[in-house]
C-alpha cells in the first residue's frame, strides 16, 4: 500500500517511513499541506498520515481541503501529532480526519492502525 506521510520534520518523516516500510508499505513524503496536495496529483495513495503543526498549510487546513475535494475525499486521513489534547482531537475530527494518533508511536501501533483505517475504507 502507498501511504503518504506529511510532516515538516525530517526525522519524523524518516522514522515513520522506516516503520511503514517494515510493515510492507510504500511511503510517499510531503513537507507540508501544499506539498502534499501537489504530490497527490501524481501519486495514488491509500492513506494519508499528517502532522498538525506545519508551515504554509497545517494539518487541519489540509484535512479540510482534501475532504471537500471530490478526488481526494475518500482517502482516509489520520492526524499524527504530539498534541495529546482532547480539544485538538475534536478539531481534527470535525475537520474530517478519520483518526488521531499521538507521537511517539511504535511501529506495531502504527501498522495496526494503517491496517484498520485502510480496511474501513
Amino acid at each position, binding site marked *: 500500500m502507498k501511504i503518504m506521510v506529511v510532516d515538516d520534520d525530517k526525522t519524523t518523516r524518516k522514522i515513520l517511513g522506516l516503520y511503514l516500510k517494515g510493515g510492507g508499505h510504500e511511503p510517499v513524503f510531503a513537507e507540508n499541506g501544499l506539498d502534499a496536495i501537489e504530490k497527490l496529483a501524481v501519486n495514488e495513495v491509500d492513506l494519508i498520515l499528517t502532522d498538525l503543526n506545519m508551515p504554509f498549510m*497545517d494539518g487541519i*487546513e489540509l484535512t479540510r481541503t482534501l475532504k471537500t475535494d471530490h478526488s481526494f475525499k475518500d482517502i482516509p486521513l489520520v492526524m499524527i501529532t504530539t498534541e495529546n489534547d482532547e480539544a485538538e482531537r475534536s478539531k481534527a475530527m470535525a475537520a474530517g480526519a478519520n483518526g488521531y494518533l499521538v507521537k511517539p508511536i511504535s511501529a506495531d501501533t502504527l501498522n495496526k492502525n494503517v491496517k484498520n483505517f485502510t480496511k474501513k475504507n
Partner: protein
Amino acid sequence: MNKARLEKLKESLNHTDVSRRRQAASMLGEGDERAIYPLITALFDQSLAVQDSAAQSLIKIGGAAVAYMTIPVLRKEASQRNAALLILKDLGEVSVPFLYDLLKDRDDDMRKFAVDLLGDIAVGVNYELLIPMFKDENANVRAATCRTFGLLNVEEGVSHLKEALSDSEEWVAFAALEALGLMESEDGVTSITELCYGPSQVLKFAAFETLGNIPSQQSKDALIECTKTTDFITKSAAIKSLIRHGIEPGMAFLGSDLRVMLKNDDWEDKLTAISGLSTIKDKDSLYNLLDLAGSLDVSYPENEERIIIIKNAVLNIADCSSLLSLLDVNNLKFRGMAILVETLGKLKCVEAIDPLVKLLRSSLRDIRREAAHALVEIADERCVDSLIEALSDDDGHVRKQSIYALRKLKSKKAFLPILDLIGKDTYEDVVDEGVKALLSMDSSKFLHKADSYPENFKIYIAKYAQETELLLDLSKDNSKTVKMAAISRLGSLNEESAYNRLSELLKDADLELRRSSAMALSQYSVFVDGLLSAVRDSDMWVRFYALKAIAASKGADYIGLFAEALRDRENLVVMGAIDALSNLGGQDAYEALYSIKYHSDDAIRQRVEEVLQTL
C-alpha cells in the same frame, strides 16, 4: 507612521473586504511598536491571506516586543500556532530569552516548541539551560532536545546524546542518532555501534546510516564488522554507508552482498552496488552486470545513462580472460553481448580475435558492427583475412568499420579487395573511407590511374591526397565538382604553385570557381596578388572572401581597400570591411569607420557604433 494613518489602517483591519484587510495588514509592517497588537489580532483573521500578511509585517517590524507578544499565540489554534512558530524563528536571536521561559511550561507542546525553536535559531543559545530537557518526562521533548543539540553542534552535548541512545522510547534514540550523525561525532561511534546489535530493526538501520556520516576509521571498521552479522535489509544500509566512506579494493568479502543488492528493484541500490563492485573489481559480477545492461529498454532516457555506468564498471572490472569465458554464455541478451564485445575491443584483447571474427558472421547486425569495431580497436595483423572477408558484409557500417581497421593495419593485402569494393559500393561514406584507406596503404599505386577513376573517387582523392601536382591536375578536371574539391585543398598546401593556381582561378569566368578560390585563400589566410582585383569582382561573395583573405594575411598594408569597401553596395561586404578594420584598429581604421557612422542601414550603423566604442 503618524497616528491618524495608524488608526485608519487599524480600522481597515476590520473591513468586510478581505483585500482591504490584507492591504492594511501589509501596510502596518511599515509602522512601529504601536502596530504590533493590531497585527497580532490580525493573525486570527478568518482569511489565510490576511494572517500571512500580518505574520510578514510582524517579522518586518521585528524586535523583542514582537517576540514577547507572539509567545502567547503559540497556545492558540494550529493556524495561529504555526504563524507564531514562523515569526519567532524568523526573528532569530531576539526570540531566544523568551523561549527559555517556556522550557519549564506545564504544557508538553510548549516545551517542545521552545526546544525546537532554539535549535532552529541556533544563535545566542545557552545550551546549558537545555541539558535538563534530556530528562524531560515527555518523549517528544526529549527527542526535540536531541535534534536541537545536533543543530547546535556543541561538544558538551555528545555524552547526553550517547545516553539518549538507550532511551526507553525508540523515537528519542532515533533523534539522538540523527544528531550524532549531524555532528559527525567520532566520540559517539562505540555507542552507535552497540545499536547495530540491538533488537530494534529501525535503530539498527539508522545506526548504520549514522556511521556512514561519521568520517573516521573507527566507524568504517564498525561498519565492516556489522556487515558480517546482520540480515540483508540492514546490511544493505551498512554497505551503502561503507561505500560513502569509500570502500577499498581489498574488501572483496562484500562481493556476494553487492551482487544480491544489484538485483534489488530500487535503482539507488543497484547504482550503489555497481559502484562497490567496480571498486573491488568483482569479476563474478560481470555476467550480472552485462545481463542487467541487456535488459534495459533504451527508449527510456534514464537507461542510457545507466548503460554508460554499467559499461564503465565492466571496463574497470574485466580482463580479457574473464570476458572470453562469457562469450560462450548463450543466454546473454544481445545488448549485454554488444557491451562485452565492445569491452574486448577497448581492452585490446588479442586472444579474442578468433571469436570476434566468428561474431562478424553473426546474424545480429549490431553484434557484427561491434565485432568489427572491436577488431579495429585491437588492430592485429591476425585479423586481416577476416576483415577482408567482412568487406562483403550486407551492412554498410560493418564494411566501413572493416575498411577502417584495415587502414589502421596498413595491410597491402587488402588493397585490391578495397579498391574492388569501393568501385561498386552504393554508400558514399564507405567509398570515402575506402579512398582514405587506399591512399594510406599505397598512395602511388592508387593514384597511378587517378585519371580513369569515377567522379566520386576523384572528389575524395582531392579531399585527402597530399600530392600538389595531382591536386593541381584535379583543379583542371572536366568535372566542376572535382575541380572545386581540389581548389579548396590547394589553399592548405603552402606551395607557390598551388597559390599561383588559386590566383589564376580568381579571374576564371566561372563564378563558382572564383568563389571557391577566394574562400580557400580566406580559410588558410593566404595572400596572392589576384586578391587585389578580386575585391572589385562583380560577385559579392568573391569580394567578401577576398577582403577576408587580405585582412588575415596583409591587412595593415591595404587599409585603403577596406575603407573603399565600406562604400560597397552590398551590406555583406561592408560588414566584412568593418570586421577587418575593427581587427586592425588604429587612427586610420577609426577615421574610416567614423565616415560611415550615419550609414543608411540600421544594422551597419549599429555595428559601426559598437566598433567605434572599442577602438
